[in-house]
């Protein structure tokens, strides 16, 4: 007799537990407001990445096309993947001394793991993270970028 | 939980040939390779030490010798020792397997064999774990792979 009672109580417990689950999915079925999907390409205009979002490495330039990179190579040294290469030049400055300036600050986005060591260790805060995240390109060579803009110069600190 | 001194005494009583180098953090025990299994067996079975949990096992290549390192813990008393064994034969290093005591050692030993080329005697299945059979032993310090590894 006991086993028969157990048989039927099992059935009812089973059905009620199934109903509990169906209530949850049913609840969401009748509350379409709970939809969390973002309509990505449509919301591009309003999509704002977080201010600290690590999309890519950029070198901020000010209005006069000046950047802060001295070409010291610390970022290149700190990069664990070799995704930064710095080509430097030596040019004479106003006082006639030879001074090191960057020719090209090459950044291989394809190798970057966004560990942030270059940005953190840069002594002159010349690098920053950009919020751009749509990096897909058809040609891998396009992922190699030159960070300093053409014709840009190093910003001289007011002494 | 036994402190370092008590453990030292007990281990010395198990195996007089052990050395206790000055460890920075944990109690380190260097045991001759041929005594490793018997010492580990005693460490595991003795009710005072009861080292029943092999946290990890690895090897270090010192170019002149290989060192096999076992980190043992007792889940009952929570004391921890580092058991080491030096293998001076770097060409064909071999040591007893601890698989019979710790089942997990089977795979740690296979990994060590894979990466260092240390053979384990009495191991039930001495095959490479990760890499192909004809690949070298990459964690040896004199390993060179011109194709896959770019040295900076």
């Amino acid at each position, binding site marked *: 007799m006991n086993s028969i009672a157990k048989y039927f109580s099992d059935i009812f417990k089973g059905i009620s537990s199934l109903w509990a689950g169906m209530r949850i*999915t049913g609840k969401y079925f009748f509350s379409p407001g709970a939809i969390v999907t973002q309509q990505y390409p449509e919301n591009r205009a309003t999509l704002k990445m977080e201010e600290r979002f690590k999309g890519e490495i950029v070198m901020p330039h000010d209005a006069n096309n000046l950047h802060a990179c001295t070409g010291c190579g610390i970022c290149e040294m700190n990069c664990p993947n070799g995704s930064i290469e710095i080509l430097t030049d030596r040019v004479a400055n106003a006082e006639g001394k030879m001074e090191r300036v960057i020719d090209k600050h090459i950044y291989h986005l394809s190798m970057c*793991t*966004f560990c942030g060591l270059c940005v953190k*260790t840069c002594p002159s805060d010349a690098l920053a993270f950009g919020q751009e995240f749509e990096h897909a390109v058809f040609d891998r060579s396009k992922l190699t970028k030159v960070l300093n803009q053409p014709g840009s110069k190093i910003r001289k600190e007011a002494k | 939980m036994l402190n370092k001194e008590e453990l030292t005494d007990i281990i010395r009583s198990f195996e007089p040939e052990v050395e206790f180098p000055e460890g920075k953090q944990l109690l380190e025990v260097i045991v001759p390779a041929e005594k490793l299994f018997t010492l580990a067996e005693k460490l595991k079975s003795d009710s005072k030490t009861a080292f029943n949990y092999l946290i*990890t096992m690895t090897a270090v290549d010192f170019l002149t010798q290989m060192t096999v390192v076992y980190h043992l813990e007792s889940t009952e008393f929570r004391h921890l020792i580092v058991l080491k064994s030096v293998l001076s034969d770097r060409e064909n290093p071999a040591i007893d397997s601890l698989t019979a005591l*710790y089942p997990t050692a089977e795979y740690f030993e296979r990994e060590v064999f894979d990466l260092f080329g240390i053979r384990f005697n009495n191991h*039930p299945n001495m095959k490479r774990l990760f890499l192909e059979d004809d690949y070298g032993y990459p964690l040896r310090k004199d390993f060179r792979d011109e194709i896959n590894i770019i040295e900076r």
Partner: protein
Amino acid sequence: MSEEIIKDVIVGEQEDYIINMGPQHPSTHGVLRLEVCLKGETVKYLIPHVGYIHRGIEKMCEANTYQQIIHLTDRMDYLSAHMNNEAVCMVVENAMQVKVPERVKYIRTILNELNRLASHQLWWCAFGMDLGALTSFFYGLRDREMILDIFEESFGSRLLHSFNTPGGLMHDVHPNFQNRIKEFIKYFRKKLPEYDQLLTGNVIFQNRAIGIGLMSKETAIGYGVTGPSGRGSGFSCDVRKIAPYGAYDKVQFNEILATEGDVFARYKVRMAEMWESMNILEQLVDNIPEGDFTAKMKPIIKLPAGEYFQRVETARGELAVYVVSDGNKSPYRMKFRTPNFSNLFVMNEISAGCKIADLIAISGSLDLVIPDIDR
């Protein structure tokens, strides 16, 4: 037991029905290959084949500085990236005997628990999906998104946030950090009971989980199965309790233990750990002390010659880092004892004699992350 022995002694038949589960299989959660020998639907034995994603992280560590190693550890167990980071940071800090600011410890502990929550949520999704309850996948991911948003706001990345650095943090957390965690906890405390209603209480689920994949405490200890999987067998292995680090000695929490050792016990442990993580978070989130976000460290870290060992509790078990230093800026030998490595190899022991469907449940309940096995 070894595969060779099983093949020779137990099987000995010519007509083994061997299927390869993986490397591309929906439920191995990565490139793991299980060579499964079947008799009908019943599993006779299985052989795990790993190494499909072996990247030689330990070898790479030998060429990198300690700061650079951090970002490699992210890529072992990507779901507990923060804990992996912290393990390396702590081994360096302890070796250098750096005093880490209290603020850093608190933030790290909060991040640990957030990361554990995110990881367990993902596990819940994937486990439900392994058992065929596809809806659970989306509910879990929906809630995990909240945590990832917190991460993104503070560190700029969602999954692999190399946020720790030896001595402290890369930068301070976002001003919104505490508020968003409190919001999240409030939200998730309402959502977690839904998980129970959807899956835990479900009679089909319970039948699939109870009594399957029994792992005794001895097996768990012998195979070194740690984390929630080991605690489901009654193996008390919570490093947060055994050797408290970070701010874990300042919070009240319980080590969740279950004694049954089956799939359902491991499930229950993880579900309870989610509640426990929220408790820890609530205790910490309002008490973050003011201070620096990093200790003063030299730009080039050279560990004194010697050997160092540090363990932390990741979402999947015990991660141990063993460093041999020769005084240079990069380690002489770095060994990661990753939890999944040990957790995987117990599968043969606990899945013999079960059905294929149970095999999926067992591998789901062990919560394997394959890159963590291969490193």
